[in-house]
């Protein structure tokens, strides 16, 4: 029990620290939402509007930082994330609501795909090490070593522009109304393929490598040799004895990755004009949109913590040794 209380306290303190950091960081940036907006408009908004914008955003009442901080927590406890500046007066919560599912959906699926594929490939090449299959590794490494945006842009050029296989941007065909009908869903899937593939290809090497190395390490454990000595089928030894144990460290990495899914892959969303939260956060940053930044950070932080909590649980479930303590 104490174990869980300790973990609980740990998570709460982490969350508090992260939220606080998230509050102060944006405010330490130079500039303010109004000037950012004017700059961004590049002449569309006249500086004459500065005053009206200040009034609009409620930045004219001269609250001290501490007052803002306390009222921020107050708002948080009431589930109110405030109004976004960049999309004024849209509430932060609806900006997040609108963008989060896309990111979670696409990046989530891509990550899961990447993990499953990578782990499987890693299992195989780790098990049959020294065979030609090892050649997968340098190829995968190459794709993880190129910057994602570079890779993504070339992928767009090749697969969307040169050969018109996939759409170049957006989450679905503009004009479709989100609904649970085939037309919409197929459009979403169709638009998701290229971004998802690029994510998978560029992130898979880590999973392959991690699993392969663990497989190699675990393969030389005595219990694997014992399993072989028992005359078990090769598949069973590989899956149930070697991979089953080797996969444990992947879980924690996966949890971390899951957490970061929510952060979105900003670069992917930029490159593919994908309607996710990563790009929203980026816009919030460039617009000095504190409320939105805080909201995004909060969601990301919580997601990472929850993912880690889940990882703790799953890990305890998969590795009986850790259950001992709790």
């Amino acid at each position: 029990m104490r174990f869980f209380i300790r973990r609980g306290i740990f998570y709460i303190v982490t969350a508090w620290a992260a939220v606080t950091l998230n509050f102060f960081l944006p405010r330490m940036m130079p500039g303010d939402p109004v000037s950012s907006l004017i700059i961004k408009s590049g002449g569309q908004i006249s500086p004459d509007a500065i005053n009206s914008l200040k009034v609009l955003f409620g930045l004219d009442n001269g609250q001290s930082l501490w007052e803002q901080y306390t009222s921020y927590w107050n708002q948080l406890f009431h589930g109110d994330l405030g109004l976004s500046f960049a999309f004024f007066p849209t509430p932060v919560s609806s900006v997040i609501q609108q963008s989060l599912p896309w990111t979670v959906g696409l990046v989530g699926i891509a990550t899961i795909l990447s993990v499953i594929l990578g782990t499987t490939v890693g299992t195989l090449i780790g098990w049959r090490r020294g065979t030609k299959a090892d050649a997968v590794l340098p190829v995968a490494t190459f794709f993880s070593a190129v910057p994602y945006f570079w890779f993504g842009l070339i992928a767009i050029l090749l697969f969307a522009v040169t050969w018109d296989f996939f759409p170049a941007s957006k989450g679905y065909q503009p004009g479709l109304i989100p609904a649970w009908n085939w037309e919409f869903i197929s459009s979403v899937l169709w638009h998701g393929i290229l971004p998802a593939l690029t994510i998978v290809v560029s992130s898979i090497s880590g999973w392959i490598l991690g699993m392969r190395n663990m497989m190699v390490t675990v393969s030389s454990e005595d219990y694997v040799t014992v399993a072989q000595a028992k005359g078990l089928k090769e598949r069973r030894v590989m899956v149930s004895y070697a991979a089953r144990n080797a996969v444990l460290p992947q879980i924690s990495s996966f949890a971390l990755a899951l957490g970061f899914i929510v952060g979105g892959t900003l670069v992917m969303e930029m490159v593919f004009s994908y309607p996710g939260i990563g790009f929203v956060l980026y816009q919030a940053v460039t617009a000095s949109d504190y409320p939105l930044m805080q909201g995004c950070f909060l969601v990301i932080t919580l997601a990472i913590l929850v993912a880690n909590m889940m990882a703790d649980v799953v890990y305890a479930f998969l590795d009986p040794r850790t259950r001992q303590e709790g």
Partner: protein
Amino acid sequence: MPTDTPPAGSAAAVETAGDVVLRAQGLTKHFPLRGLARGKAVHAVDGVDLELTRGSVVALVGESGSGKSTIAKLLSLLIHRTSGDIRLSDKSVDGRGRRAFRRHSKRVQMIFQDPFGSLNPIHTIRYTLTRSVRIHKGNLRGDKLEAALEELLARVQLTPVDRYIDKFPHELSGGQRQRVAIARALAADPDVLLADEPISMLDVSIRLGILNLLKTLRDDMHVAILYITHDIASARYFADRTMVMYAGQIVEQGPSEDITQTPAHPYTRLLIDSAPDPDAPARTERSTSGEAPSLVSPPPGCRFAARCPFANDLCRSETPDLFNVPGDDRAARCWGYSDRDNKPDVSGVAKSVKETI
């Protein structure tokens, strides 16, 4: 900071063979538990009295987990005791504070079980020994340092010195490494050597070499040695006195020869019976089974009661003290040797052993 401990050198000069250098009284160590069982503790060592005298070897035997290493660590002040007292040359020590700890470590040195682990793989022998010399003998340099190193290696019979001094641990055999570990301890010119299973990780054929080396140290330098082992035969071979530990307590103590030949405590007997012995006629009776009691909540009464063929209700309800056993300075923690009316009959212990001889 305790300042009453006299400088080590002078103390060493005064004391001669036979003097008690290190004495522990009621030494107790409870490791607090974490997690669910918080509030409870592992009673690793419970009320151990022990004396180390110059020029003699005391063996501490017992099964795995009985608290032997914990005693060694307590005596070297690597961990802090829960209660009890440790007196070095009759001065209580607790090693809090760096200087006090160093002073203690100068006189009480420890040798670890695993010579493969106790030498840092990335340092040469020269580095390891130089550090020890510098810590304990002042900042020697040049020829003086060289001479000190040479002398150390010569003492542990690693000669010619040049062949070993610049080697890394992995380039040496286990026996050689253990000698280096001993040399490191000797650099402090200690009065007490705590040898925690110094040979159990070594090849059979080189074990004796180390034991014989320790013997020389005892005889030539009058070092007091605590020899920890689970091999009771080697205790007989090497130690003057033997103490048998079971579940955190001393259950029997006395001269090694007496203990091995006429064990008084049923556990000692079990230990001796269990040791492989090609000379002994084939034993037919099955030995006692069962495992040591939990150290977290030790059962009331004698800790060995659950496995003891002689145990009666008394044993299961009241904790025995160390009672004197007939013989020269012997004692056993067994109700059988008390003068209680309802004491168990342990005559079978000595009898059965005598028969086998």
